[in-house]
């Protein structure tokens, strides 16, 4: 009987001390926000309503929502959210019980619909305006009596707004780079010649610049043609290129490379548009033709490369040399 009492006390101690204390300290946050992207073309003087859904999948949490402008950070689709609000667009929540920058509470597995009203004032300047709706958690900083850092989780959804009176948008694209990243590059009579081993994956970069004042979305393909008549097509992914910015455009289907074994491979050091895998022999030409919606101008570019089985060739020479050496070494002397 005593042993059972002892075990019961141990169990209660374990439950209260370890399990309970873990529950208090290990606060987790898991939020989802949809839709992740909204694009709108809108006239001055008009307003629209966007219904966002925020869901809390983890511990109960206090949240608040705000809207801040952003700008493209680089050509990889990353953004830099500005610290202060700017621009002519006016945002508010149509929810009866909620306002922007006002805290609200979500229990575990509870969701809230945020009705974001977007209004373009009369006389707003035509052009593009880019914003992010941010929903952020309020960290509980008073629980711990020890030194600690507290993580605050913020989740965003981007809003791309094109303000136009006429409905016309400016399409002013330029291909700034369409090039393979070769293993070797030679200069021959002033022309650069790209050279790969036959078994090398071919990394390709396509960067398009939007010189206009409205965002554009590329459509098109990259075509690979070999000297034996072989041909392969890769579709461009229609990713937005914001006004006055550049973007690395990706194409599909792209080969996947295990960079743990190929850390020096150039496609493992920086993002590329497309990786083409296979066995290549001879001269190849890559070309692309890009449009930006119906009746838009087409821009094009091309590049080329040579492929030769260097590794096989070296292996063959080495094997023959060793073979020749061994034959000579062990052959009977007359």
């Amino acid at each position, binding site marked *: 009987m005593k042993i059972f009492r002892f075990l019961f006390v141990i169990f209660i101690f374990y439950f209260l001390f370890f399990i309970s204390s873990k529950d208090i300290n290990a606060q987790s946050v898991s939020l989802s*926000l949809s839709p992740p992207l909204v694009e709108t*073309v809108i006239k001055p003087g008009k307003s629209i309503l966007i219904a966002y859904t925020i869901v809390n999948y983890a511990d109960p949490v206090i949240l608040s929502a705000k809207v801040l402008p952003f700008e493209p950070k680089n050509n990889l689709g990353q953004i830099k959210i500005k610290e202060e609000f700017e621009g002519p667009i006016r945002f508010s929540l149509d929810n009866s019980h909620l306002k922007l920058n006002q805290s609200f509470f979500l229990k575990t597995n509870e969701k809230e619909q945020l009705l974001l009203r977007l209004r373009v004032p009369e006389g707003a300047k035509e052009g593009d305006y880019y914003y992010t709706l941010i929903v952020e958690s309020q960290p509980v900083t008073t629980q711990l009596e020890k030194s600690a850092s507290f993580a605050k989780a913020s989740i965003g959804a981007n809003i791309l707004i094109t303000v136009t009176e006429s409905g016309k948008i400016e399409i002013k694209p330029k291909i700034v780079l369409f090039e393979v990243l070769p293993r070797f590059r030679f200069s021959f009579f002033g022309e650069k010649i790209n050279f790969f081993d036959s078994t090398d994956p071919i990394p390709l970069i396509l960067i398009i610049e939007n010189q206009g004042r409205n965002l554009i979305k590329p459509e098109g393909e990259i075509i690979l043609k070999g000297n034996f008549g072989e041909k392969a097509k890769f579709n461009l992914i229609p990713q937005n290129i914001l006004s006055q910015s550049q973007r690395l455009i990706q194409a599909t289907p792209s080969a996947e490379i295990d960079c743990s074994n190929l850390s020096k491979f150039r496609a493992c050091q920086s993002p590329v548009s497309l990786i083409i895998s296979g066995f290549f022999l001879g001269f190849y030409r890559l070309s692309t033709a890009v449009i930006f919606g119906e009746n838009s101008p087409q821009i094009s*570019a091309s590049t080329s490369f040579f492929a030769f089985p260097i590794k096989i060739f070296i292996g063959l020479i080495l094997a023959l040399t*060793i073979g020749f050496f061994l034959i000579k070494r062990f052959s009977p002397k007359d």
Partner: protein
Amino acid sequence: MKKATLLIISLSFLFFFLKSVFALNMESPLFKIQYGEIGIAGGNKSSANYSLSDTVGQTAAGQFNSTGYIVKAGFQYLHSIIPFRFSISNTNINFGTLIPNSPQTATTTLTVSFGAAGQYQVTAIEEGRLRTLDEVNSVPDTQCDGGTNTCNESLAKPWTSNTAYGFGYNMSGNDIPSDFIDSTYFRPFPNRQENESPAVIMSSANVGRNRQAVVTFKVNISPIQPAGKYQTIINFVATPSF
């Protein structure tokens, strides 16, 4: 007979090298090269390394109707019915009692889920230095081991010395910056109070889903650090691309 043996040895060498040459995967479940289409070696013959052209134009927004607006939600090129989701496994990163020259570490796991595919980024910034509640004393942001191993907000360097003091973080897992070479490499957090820009700590320019990374926080205080409870807030912001 000897010659035949030597020939076999030579060919064995050749096949050994051939095997290593063809070790690269030529296909995967995620891609397929579509050969077989008969094409004529045409195209732009005048091109050198690459050629390009650009055009200036304007087009009408076809769906811009009498309502005065068009709205499109979600990405055109991926199934975005599965929403963008961001998780932090533990928001209370407890360092316990700080002991001089004895580095304390704690971890939390960041997870980004993005439906079928999508580009995203996660940034981090500290709202202020790790400091006492009265804001009188603070632990400096780490400079790692110093000298050639001086790290900054955008470059991780080794931090192994117990006499190098400060507060910083290491990253491991998916889509992390390449300067976090191993678990000894750290960076200081950018500080909002010093008008520094948030650091991108996870990002993917390629498509991906359920990406996960572990943030290891590290703090090491000097013997002259005043006693007290030091705290700060780290803001992790996850955003999809556009």
